[in-house]
């Protein structure tokens, strides 16, 4: 699949923002209003920038309001609805703490729950697609949630919890890669089922329907990701988990070191998310003899 920067920023940044909201909602910083103000601003900014980035790839962003209507069937619509609800509830909760110094734990719990559901909905946009076997597995939502939790805990300054979550995240990511590599073959979709010609023998494309490119090829056939897959996986894993874990376990984490760990984690997240899109193969490529 074509790795559109807008979608990568959307899933990565909003995941971090909502992940941070989960921890602020459950356990707000005890040092008072100003600290909460800084953390909340960070969470809201990440989530809002991510959501705005998602509108960049739309053909008609001016009609985006219509996307809140189909929550009965569409994970994308659900994601929009729950994301806005989360922003509202979290905004009210954080506002009460910052402005009036009043902490309402129920509101915080609700904000955390909504934030978690938002991340799940984001993941389901991709996990629901049978046409992309690599994404169509239960590990996809698990991975998105672990990304949000590990990143959120890190941003919230809960270092030891974050390191544990990062270890789980790394394990889930490796498992998802291994399973993902087998997913296309396991889906059972081949050129023979795609054309229905399997009974006559082994099929191959003789002539493509057109000599130039088209929307389908631009959007759903992308080979650079798979070509460098192994290298990118190692880079992602080192930045995402191995470096933060090594630093966190060897040294006592103070502000400067925490910043290094955060930056490394985010860089790893972006590489992993780029790869999530770039190495995924869509079954439509079979019709073009490309994947």
């Amino acid at each position, binding site marked *: 699949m074509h790795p559109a920067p807008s979608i990568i920023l959307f899933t990565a940044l909003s995941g971090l923002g909502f992940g941070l909201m989960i921890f602020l909602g459950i356990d707000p910083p005890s040092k008072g209003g100003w600290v909460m103000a800084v953390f909340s601003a960070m969470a809201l900014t990440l989530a809002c920038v991510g959501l705005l980035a998602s509108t960049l790839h739309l*053909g008609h962003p001016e009609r985006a309001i*219509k996307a809140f209507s189909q929550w009965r069937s569409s994970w*994308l619509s659900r994601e929009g609805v729950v994301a806005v609800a989360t922003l509202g509830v979290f905004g009210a909760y954080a506002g009460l703490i910052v402005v009036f110094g009043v902490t309402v734990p129920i509101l915080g719990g609700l904000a955390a729950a909504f934030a978690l559901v938002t991340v799940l909905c984001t993941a389901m946009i991709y996990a629901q697609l049978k046409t992309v076997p690599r994404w169509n597995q239960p590990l996809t939502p698990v991975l998105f949630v672990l990304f949000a939790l590990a990143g959120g805990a890190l941003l919230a300054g809960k270092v030891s919890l974050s390191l544990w979550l990062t270890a789980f995240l790394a394990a889930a990511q490796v498992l998802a890669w291994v399973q993902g590599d087998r997913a296309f073959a396991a889906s059972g979709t081949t050129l023979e089922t795609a054309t*229905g010609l399997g009974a*006559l023998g*082994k099929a191959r494309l003789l002539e493509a329907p057109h000599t130039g490119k088209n929307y389908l090829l631009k959007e759903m056939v992308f080979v650079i990701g798979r070509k460098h897959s192994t290298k990118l996986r190692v880079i992602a894993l080192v930045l995402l988990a191995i470096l933060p874990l090594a630093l966190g376990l060897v040294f006592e984490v103070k502000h400067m070191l925490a910043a290094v760990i955060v930056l490394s984690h985010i860089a790893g997240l972006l590489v992993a998310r780029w790869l999530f899109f770039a190495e995924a193969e869509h*079954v439509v490529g079979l019709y073009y003899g490309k994947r």
Partner: protein
Amino acid sequence: MTTLPDKTEKSLGLAIDLDTCVGCHACVVSCKEWNTGAYGAPLADTDPYGADPSGAFLNRVHTFEVKQPDQPAQVTHFPKSCLHCKDAPCVTVCPTGASYKRVEDGIVLVNESDCIGCGLCAWACPYGAREMDPVEKVMKKCTLCVDRIYNDNIPEEDRVPSCVRTCPAGARHFGDFDDPTSDIFKLVEKRGGIDLMPEQGTRPVNKYLPPRPKADTTPQVDVLGPLLDVSTQDAGGFFGWLDRALDKI
């Protein structure tokens, strides 16, 4: 509403005969022509006369070769357009309600004024039946020529999808798959029409009629060969004499 109807009153669709299709692409051209001037925004192209032409099409013809290990290869032309699935995954993923499946005839359509151009429906379709219009930035797909089949302003014989009307080989058939008395129902029954990618669970309405088995694939003895050999038997005159004289040397 992007939830799918439990049942549609009809299931209009196409049966495509892979045995008959000659791969002339006439259906591709007529589809493009009709849908550029009819329903919704024109079906646009970018750089159509330049070095890198590209554009949105609702129907495309692929050509595949099928081969058994020790048999000659068989070529099959393969037109592909929206299959108007009963469990259309493109419809349920749509966040705005722009994509819908009609209760009255089962046609899957896009309401272009509601489409935000997010492209998720094209990702959800396993068949590559949806393409984003490069100019209008809304999703385009086969409408089963909904603006022809019910159109009282055109002659009755034209009230079929443009691709069906134009096919010179008669490889495309249109009708109601829910009606056991319809020609298309009987045709699909008789020829063993198949679903594409049944494992994707989309339950397509359109059916493909597989190529008929070749009657005889044993290597042929060339009976005409000897008769077509160069003969100088009747040559007369100087060259006839030369021919005979040279034969004797």
